[in-house]
Structure formats: structure tokens, C-alpha cells
């Protein structure tokens, strides 16, 4: 009763609770929050051993790998699912409050929330996400599978009786799905994503340069010169890391071909997943997909020439969705609207 009253002063929101970034789409307002899923926790001095949230989001991400002993910056999500339940709840609570901050100050927010989950998430993981959102103050919680939300967000005609294939490369997982008639015909989730790219770069640099670089540096390398397919242009970047032999920070230069080599292993994981999906797709839908193509969404789609790699490997036209980073959150928001218009049985919502 009180919840529905408070609901008058809350938004309907869709959350893409990703390993790397959390995006919140507010109905009627668009994407209002896009922050890293990072929480910094400070250990309070004293006998009680209490822990406090020190920072969340962008601020906390800047602390990653740079924290003193009493602060730990952690990512509460791993591989698209909750690794630390309490911290996830706190993070969601912070984000939900932040979204409502400017408009409804007087009331504790109690929004309707739709959360996108990886299709590979188990029942236990789904329940954990649901309870986490409920604990963060959500009035009602719905779950939608990420590829479905991504396809809606990318503007794919999922209601048609024709196959659409979507590949959503997130921070922790990559989801591949074939959709038709508002439903998922095939889905698969591989635990390869942006984080694995970063790890591969870190490992490559350590192996070939004997130098240790941090997560943030690896990510910067990926963003600036990362590529998935050999191009005509070779780009370079100067990075600093600790030389393992000397123990002193050293600076060195990396080029895009080296990064391409470093990324081979995670990329082949994605390519294999796409090929497996095509093998498993019923032939009629496969024909539709080969005519129209495969749609790439998620932050991983921004890796340079990833579409060229997939075109060469699969022989399908490959399309990068507009604004791939926000596709899932936007799709979730649209799903909320459609759910209100057509009832909850439009998609397989939980």
C-alpha cells in the first residue's frame, strides 16, 4: 500500500546491470545513468570492523588498483552475475537513489524495475538479482533476457516470423541469440567479454615485455588501439608499467598488430560461439539471418573491425547497432512500455 503510494513519486526504470557498466534507462527520459559497476569500500577503524561504502561508479572506478589498505575497490558483478550480493544491493540502491535525486527528493524511491540478465544465468543467479533489486527498494522487479532487450533496443523486427540474430558483447559475457516471433529460438552465453580482452592484453604485455600493467591501463589500450582484424593503418600507444625484472616502472610502445595478436584467443571464443549458433539454428531462420545479417550490440561491438572479422569468419553481413553500449538498457525500457501496453505475457518476463 505504502509502496504503491511511493510509486507515484518514482520512475519506471530499466537497468542493464552489467559486469563493466550499469546503465539505467528511465521511461520517458532516456538513458540517465551510465557508470562503471564498481564500488569502493572503506574499512572503518575500530573494534566493530565495520565497512562503509566510500564511492560508487565513476569515482570508485578511478580508485581501482590505486587504493590504500583500508579501501578496496571491487566489482560486485562477475561474468554477468552477482559475485557479491550485499555490495550489489548497495550499488543498486545508490544508483536508484541517484536517478531519483533530482526529481523526487522527499520520498524514498520505490520504482518498478526491469533488469536484464544473461540468458545463461541460473535460477539461483536470477533470484539473487531479483532480491538484490527488491532489497534496493524496487516495488516490482521484472527480469528480461539480455539478447531480447538488446534486439529490441537495436530496433530489430523481433515480432516478425523471420529470424534475427543478435550478438551482445558485454563486459563479462557475450550473449548470442536467434529471435523470432517475440521469442528466443536459440541462445548461448559465453563467458568472454570486455574483461577477457583486458586480461588477454595484460597477459600479452607481461609475456612479451616482462612488464605488469593494471586493469585500467589494459582497458585504455583496448579502447585506443584495440582491433579485431588486420587493417591498413597501424596505430601505436605509449604505456607505462612495472618491469618485472627490474621492478621499476618503465614506459614502452605497443602497436595495434600486437593487440590483435593478444586478442586472438578471446575473439576466437566469440567466433566459435557465433558459428555454433549458426549450426544450431533451424534452417529457415538461418536463411533469414544470412539474408539480413547479424546485429552486434554491447560495448564489445565498439572494438575496431570486429564486424569485419565476423564478416570474414561467418560470411554473413554484420551490422553494428546504433549506440551499441546502450542498446540493452534502451531495449529494456521499451519492453517496460510494451509490457504496459500489451500485458506481461508479450515477452518471457519473469
Amino acid at each position, binding site marked *: 500500500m505504502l509502496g504503491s503510494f511511493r510509486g507515484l513519486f518514482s520512475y519506471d526504470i530499466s537497468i542493464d546491470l552489467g559486469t563493466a557498466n550499469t546503465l539505467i534507462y528511465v521511461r520517458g527520459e532516456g538513458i540517465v545513468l551510465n557508470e562503471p559497476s564498481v564500488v569502493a569500500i572503506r574499512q572503518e577503524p575500530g573494534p566493530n570492523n565495520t565497512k562503509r561504502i566510500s564511492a560508487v561508479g565513476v569515482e570508485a572506478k578511478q580508485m581501482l588498483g590505486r587504493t590504500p589498505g583500508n579501501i578496496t575497490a571491487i566489482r560486485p558483478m562477475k561474468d554477468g552475475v552477482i559475485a557479491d550480493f550485499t555490495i550489489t544491493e548497495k550499488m543498486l540502491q545508490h544508483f536508484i537513489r541517484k536517478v531519483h535525486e533530482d526529481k523526487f527528493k522527499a520520498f524514498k524511491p520505490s520504482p518498478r524495475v526491469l533488469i536484464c540478465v544473461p540468458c545463461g544465468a541460473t535460477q539461483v543467479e536470477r533470484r539473487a538479482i531479483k532480491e538484490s533489486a527488491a532489497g534496493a527498494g524496487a516495488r516490482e522487479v521484472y527480469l528480461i533476457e539480455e539478447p531480447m532487450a538488446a534486439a529490441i533496443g537495436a*530496433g530489430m523486427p523481433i*515480432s*516478425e516470423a523471420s529470424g534475427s540474430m543478435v550478438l551482445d558483447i558485454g563486459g563479462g559475457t557475450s550473449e548470442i541469440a536467434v529471435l523470432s516471433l517475440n521469442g528466443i529460438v536459440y541462445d548461448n552465453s559465453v563467458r568472454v567479454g570486455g574483461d577477457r580482452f583486458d586480461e588477454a592484453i595484460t597477459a600479452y604485455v607481461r609475456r612479451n615485455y616482462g612488464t605488469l600493467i593494471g586493469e585500467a591501463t589494459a582497458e585504455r589500450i583496448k579502447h585506443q588501439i584495440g582491433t579485431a582484424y588486420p587493417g591498413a593503418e597501424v596505430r601505436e600507444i605509449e604505456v607505462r608499467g612495472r618491469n618485472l625484472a627490474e621492478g621499476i616502472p618503465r614506459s614502452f610502445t605497443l602497436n595495434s598488430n600486437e593487440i590483435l595478436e593478444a586478442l586472438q584467443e578471446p575473439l576466437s571464443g566469440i567466433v566459435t560461439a557465433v558459428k555454433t549458433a549458426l549450426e544450431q539454428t533451424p534452417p529457415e531462420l538461418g536463411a533469414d539471418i544470412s539474408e539480413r545479417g547479424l546485429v552486434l550490440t554491447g560495448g564489445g561491438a565498439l572494438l575496431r573491425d570486429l564486424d569485419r572479422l565476423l564478416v570474414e569468419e561467418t*560470411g554473413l553481413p554484420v*551490422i553494428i547497432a546504433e549506440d551499441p553500449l546502450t542498446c540493452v538498457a534502451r531495449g529494456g525500457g521499451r519492453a517496460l512500455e510494451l509490457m504496459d501496453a500489451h*500485458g506481461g*505475457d508479450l515477452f518471457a518476463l519473469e
Partner: protein
Amino acid sequence: MSESENDTVDEQRTSKQKTLPERPGRRLREARETRNLSREEVASELRLQTRIVAALEEDDDSSMPPSAFVVGYLRSYARRLDLPADEIVRAHEQNLEGPQPEIVPRVRKSQVSSRDLPVRMVTWLIFIGLGALLVVWWLAQQPALEEPGNSSEVATAALKATPTTPEGEAQTVAERPESATETDAQLPVFVAESEGTASEEPDPVEPTTPEPAPEAQPQAAESEAVAQAEPAATGLRMEFEADSWIQVTNADGQQLVSRVIKAGRTLRFTGKPPFRVILGYAPGVTIHYQGERFDHTPYMRSDVARFSIGSPGDDQGGEG
């Protein structure tokens, strides 16, 4: 389709859409031609069908897949030709009509839900019906509240008419019915013949009631109704303050009434005295005879009272 035909088609289209920026097809085709590439070559490189490449160059929306795909094709094509992809896509989107594909439920709903129109209509009808019933009930209550005033007037009028009847046929006169229908149905029950005694009735002779019927009481009880209607003081009048069974028999042994009377009603009897009265619940009944209070408490035995009232000399006094 030859190139010249394409040109004319494009020109027609651009002249038609002067307000809109130029569509990207022509620019793509020109760029492709300067690079000496055929449509087939481009199509095989982009893994697209030749007809889709043709449709892109001719800006032919009808043979293209949904917009999300077209934007992707344009981007890849523009990148292949080293054209600025964003510009091409913008040019395409500005001419776009339906940006989002419609998402509709594919499964017919088998279960009726509360948001269905017929269900909502029925719900509203029920609410409106209940509201209407409430109004009807309210309106029905209104006259009932006003009734005491009106009905006393009616009763007075009826009583006024009584003595003037030449035959002296008398009437009852009963009561203040709560509803008109009830009155109609029950009136005949109380009708008593007064057989020529009517002429005597109006003149009240000095009461010699054996009971201590104080003279002051009629005055105290005097209301304008009584004052207005002198005849009302004649005969036997019973006011019911509580539900009570009653039986009244006149001198001829004719039973005038024998049933339960509800609280708040008043019965009047005219006719041949003495009346033999049995009250089921005597404390709840007040009796006036010939305009004077008749105390029936001496006859009460555990709430039941049996007595006669009035004397054959028409006037009164009888006791049983």
C-alpha cells in the same frame, strides 16, 4: 535498370523532396563508380545480396529490410568506399518515416484479463447500476421523510369529509401508512360500519370513563391536527410506539383488525362501541377514546392487555 534511368529516378525524387536533404543512394553510387567497382563486387565483399546494394543506391525503401539493418548496411558500404559513414546514415535517417519496427503480441490471449475492454465495460456498468440504485433509493427515501406532514393532512381531509356523509356511513380511518401501496392493501381491513351512529359521533358528551382519564391530557396532547379536525377526537385512536399484535372487535362481534402493527403507526376506529381490544404488547400502545387518553395499564398482565372500551350508549365507559 540502366544508369540513365537511375538518374532520372533520382532527379524526380530530389525534386519531389526539395525540403529534405539528398538521400544517400546517389552519393554511394557515384563513389562506387569512381572506384570502378561493380555492384556485384561490392555485394560479395559486404556479403549482401546484389538487389539490396541496388536498393541502397536507389533509395528504394520498399525492397529493403527494417531500418536497423539498412543503417548497418549503409555504414559498411560507406566505410568500404571511404565515405563519411555518419553523414550517409544521417542523410538516410532524415528521410526515414517509421524508425522503429512495431512489436506486437504474436500469441492471441486466451485468458480474459481485467484490462480487456469488455471486462472493463461490464465493471463500469455494474458501478453505474449501483450508483443508479443508490439514487433511486435516495429519491424514494425523500417523500417518506416528508410524509408525516402530508399524510396527516390527508387524514384530516378524510376525517373532515366523514361527518358530512349523509348516510353516516363511516369509514375508518386509519393510520399513517408508510407506503401508499400498503395503505391500499390494508385499508379495507379497518373499515367498520358505523350504522347510523355517525350523527352521534361528532358531539362529544361528557366523558364518564371509569378510568381516571384526566381532562388535562387531551389538552396536553392537543396538537394542531387535533384542533383542526375535531372529528379526529371521536372514536378510538391507538398510537403504536412499539410493534404490537392487536385485535379489535366491535359491538357486533365483527373483527376490525387482528395482526401485528408496526411501531410509529396510528390506527383509528369508528363504529359501534364498545370495542373489545386485545393488545399483545400493551406498554407500547397509547389509546385515546373520544379524544381522551385511555389508561389501559390496569388491564395489563405481563404486557398483554384485554379490555373493552366505550359503552353501547355510544359514548363510552365500557370496561371489561
